[in-house]
């Protein structure tokens, strides 16, 4: 299953850091941050609970880029 979230991030480099961090979260099969459209598309593992996974994604993203915003 795949979902797309609106994000707010200011620099392209931070966006790719967020992407890397989000990919490592358990339950995330793949994550792509599109800096230009300010969107984060997350592909979840089968059986993963998106809301719980996304809470973790937000946490790790805040760690690499404190200024980022992810609108769940």
């Amino acid at each position: 299953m795949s979902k797309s979230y609106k994000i707010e991030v200011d620099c392209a480099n931070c966006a790719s850091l967020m992407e890397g961090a989000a990919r490592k979260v358990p339950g995330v099969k793949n994550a792509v941050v599109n800096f230009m459209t300010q969107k984060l598309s997350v592909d979840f593992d089968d059986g993963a609970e998106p809301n719980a996974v996304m809470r973790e994604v937000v946490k790790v993203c805040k760690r690499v880029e404190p200024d980022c915003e992810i609108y769940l």
Partner: protein
Amino acid sequence: MQEIIINLLLLVIAIASLVMFIVGRRPGSMTKKQKKVLSRILFATVILLLIRAAESLVPQELTEPAAARIIRALLYVADYLIIGYDILIKAAKGIQNRRVFDENFLMAVATLGAFALALYESGDYLEAIAVMLFYQVGEWFQSYAVGKSRRSISELMDIRPDYANIERDGGLVRVSPEEVEVGTVIVVCPGEKIPIDGVVTEGCSSLNTSALTGESLPREVSPSDEVISGCINMTGLLKIRTTKGFGESTVSRILELVENASSRKSRSEDFISRFARIYTPAVCYAAVALVLLPPVALLALGEDAAWSVWIYRALTFLVASCPCALVISIPLSFFAGIGGASRAGVLVKGSNYLEALSFAKTVVFDKTGTLTQGVFEVNAVHHSKIDEKRLLELAAHAESSSSHPISKSLVNAVETPIDRSKITCVSEVSGEGVAATVDGLRLAVGNHKLMERLGIPYISCHSHGTIVHVAIDGEYAGHIVISDRIKPTSKQAISELHGCGVRRTVMLTGDLEGTASSVANELGIDLTYSQLLPQDKVSIVESLLKENGKRERLAFVGDGINDAPVLGRADIGIAMGAMGSDAAIEAADVVLMDDDPMQIPKAIKISRKCIGIVYQNIVFAIGIKLVCLILVAVGMANMWLAVFADVGVMILAVLNAIRALFVKGTKRSRTA
């Protein structure tokens, strides 16, 4: 002199940020974060100006005591913290998360170092604050400019309809396009966008399709014509019965495609992220070397080590090294390039394909539907013993009951309607033709096999296409040439392809060799494979792929019908005139909205321009950076210049990237 310049500069920053602050009060023009940083810039600049004013006004004797010096230092520290506290926090967090070498760290080290130097030696706190201030101004501008251009690119591509009109209780009601069910009749007034794909049930109008196809000529529609969403209704009121939901409509599919396009990263983008990963640590080590090596060498030579000079240079070196311009401008260039292409009717599914397209050296065409119309037409009548029109008319009557495409084209070729009462005793021989009696004449209409079987001597034809022989009362009466008509722009498209660096053009076709080679000669195609079955095309494309050099790419152009495997196998699969064909949009990497072959050289040119801009930005940004770093290392540039160079390069690179949006020959780009 320098004092005045610095004061002026600070004043300019203060005024500019005040102006931006007022501009930013308009909703939607700035994010919350941008507003916050802006107010900090304004605040810190004003305080800095006040401190400096106080310094010059307070008499010398009062600033001498230690207490006064401490107060002065504290004021500067406070100002420094106002402008730079977030950078310091981020740098600390970076260290905590074992991600040491980022730009926050560089700035923190550089400015704290400058501060320390000021405390112990010069007392010139200004530099540390000013560098932090300029860095923040630069970062702020970058975020503002990128956000702004991102929005304006998205707006230019915005073909998303906001509403659909539905007739309800005698009046028009505006509803969200998502809510409209398939089969509903919607009303589109002149000047509105068609929100959903459908069929016209009432009204005539001309449509502006330029947002979708880049084609500026309006399209006329009348009842029972299919229309696609995203077109603008120009003249008359239309009632449209929707055939698709909003999500499956052309406009939604295109938006989805373009928005997801920049997620597929190109090699240049990969290069940049790999470069940044090596670059930042390398710069840090170079800075360390700059601190240690020259003083040690000087000591060894028995001279003064001048530690503070080299520490200052190393710090400046760190400031100058920030790779923002590079990191920001490359994805922005691709985004603008894809945006520009989509406005010209060329949908590119990812930056990687845009990049591959610029290396296209071989272009393979599937003949039918790309170079030719894919519609059979009577081209000529040869060796006719009677009036050519009469011969055609007779043949059309004989063939009128057959459903074969060739028969249909014969029927379409005669102006007068078919009079079925004239036709008697029709017998169709599959694979050969038809025998019938028309107007009392015994006709045999068919290919050479039919003529041979009937024992009628026939004249074979040298022109390409399908030959239909006609015999009247057992006598040969001439033949009709039916062929798939070549598109009017095919020849020009092939020559433009050669002109823009394509080495080989290849044509694949199921036609007989003679037909194929005459088409190829007419168009100037280099290589032709004829008499192919659909499954042969994949293996031919594979063998052509092997012949390509390392940086050469192969593009396959198909009409999107039955060629999904080949589209997938080629480096770049281009589907033509694919509006509405879901399978083609799915399989292709590049989708041409129009079926004009001239779109192919255009797409290649767009990709070349975009890649050109990407390379310019890479070379420009890295080049200026290196020059700055060298100037700093030899002591010819100070921290001010370093920050200015950084911000300046970034602005120029962003402006250059925006250039990729503008494509020659599209109507709107000239006014945009």
